[in-house]
C-alpha cells in the first residue's frame, strides 16, 4: 500500500504454546546434534511463543481504526491458534518438509494470515520464542 497521511499501524500480541523438535532429515545424526544441540532431543520440547501481528492501512474516519480488533482476533484464532496452539508443530503438514524453527513458524504464521484482514494489510509478524529471542517476517 502506498503512503498517505492517514496510514497507520495496529498490533496485538497473542500467546501460543506448542512443542517441536529441530531435526533435518538431510543431516546425519551427528550433524543434527551439532546443528541443533538440545533442540534435537527426539522427545521434543516446548515454548510459550508470543505472536505479534502488525497490521497496516488507512485509518477509517468512521471508526478511527486500521482494522477492527475483533476481525484480527477472529483471524488469528481461526487460522493460527486453532491450528498451532497446544500442538506438536512437527506434525503439522507445513512442517513435513521443513524444520519447525521459529524462523519457519514466523513465516508460516505470516502466510496463513496474509489475506485474512483485508482491506488492511499484514505488515509484519514477530514470533518471540523466549524472552531473549525473536524472529520477524514481512513477506
Amino acid at each position, binding site marked *: 500500500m502506498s*503512503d*498517505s*497521511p*492517514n*496510514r*497507520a*499501524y*495496529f*498490533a*496485538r*500480541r*497473542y500467546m501460543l504454546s506448542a512443542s517441536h523438535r529441530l531435526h533435518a532429515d538431510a543431516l546425519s545424526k551427528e550433524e543434527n546434534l551439532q546443528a541443533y544441540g538440545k533442540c534435537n532431543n527426539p522427545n521434543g520440547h516446548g515454548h510459550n511463543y508470543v505472536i505479534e501481528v*502488525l497490521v497496516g492501512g488507512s*485509518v477509517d474516519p*468512521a*471508526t*478511527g*481504526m*486500521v482494522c*477492527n*480488533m*475483533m476481525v484480527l482476533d477472529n483471524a488469528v484464532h481461526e487460522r493460527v491458534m486453532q491450528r498451532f496452539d497446544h500442538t506438536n508443530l512437527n506434525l503439522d503438514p507445513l512442517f513435513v518438509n521443513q524444520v519447525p524453527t521459529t524462523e519457519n513458524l514466523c513465516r508460516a504464521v505470516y502466510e496463513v494470515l496474509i489475506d485474512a484482514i483485508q482491506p488492511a494489510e499484514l505488515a509484519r509478524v514477530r514470533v518471540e520464542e523466549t524472552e531473549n529471542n525473536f524472529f520477524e517476517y514481512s513477506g
Partner: protein
Amino acid sequence: MVFLTRRATFSASHYYWNETWTAEKNEQVFGRCANRNGHGHNYTVEVTVAGEPDPVTGFVVDLKWLKAVIEDEVLEAYDHRHLNLEVPEFARGKAIPTTENIAISVWNRLRAKVAGAGGATLERVRIYETPDIFAEYRGGR
C-alpha cells in the same frame, strides 16, 4: 542515522462512539468500548526521533529536552483526563480516541517541536494501550 526512543506513560479514560451512527451500530462495531460511561487504560508512549549525533555533544537530541516536550505537549493534555471530554482533537464529532488516532495526535503535537530542535526528525510514535495492544504512526509511511 541514529534512532533514539523515549518512553512515557499516562493514564486516561475514553469511549468509542460515532455520532452519525445508531446506538445499535456503535455497539455492534465497538463492542464494550462503546460504553458511554467510559473506561480507562495505562498507556505507554514511545517517541522515536531520527538524526545524526551532534559531533560535540554526541546527542541526536537532548533526552532531558525530549522528556520535557513529551510532558508539556502530551502528558499535560492526556494524563488523568477523559480523552473524549477534555482533549480538543477527540471532542464530540471529531476523531474517535482509538489507539491509532492517539498515535496520530501525539505525532501532530510533537512533529514541529522536534523538527525545530535542530537536525533531528520525528520517526515514529507508538502507543501501547495495554502490554499486548499497540498502534504506530510514522507520518503516513
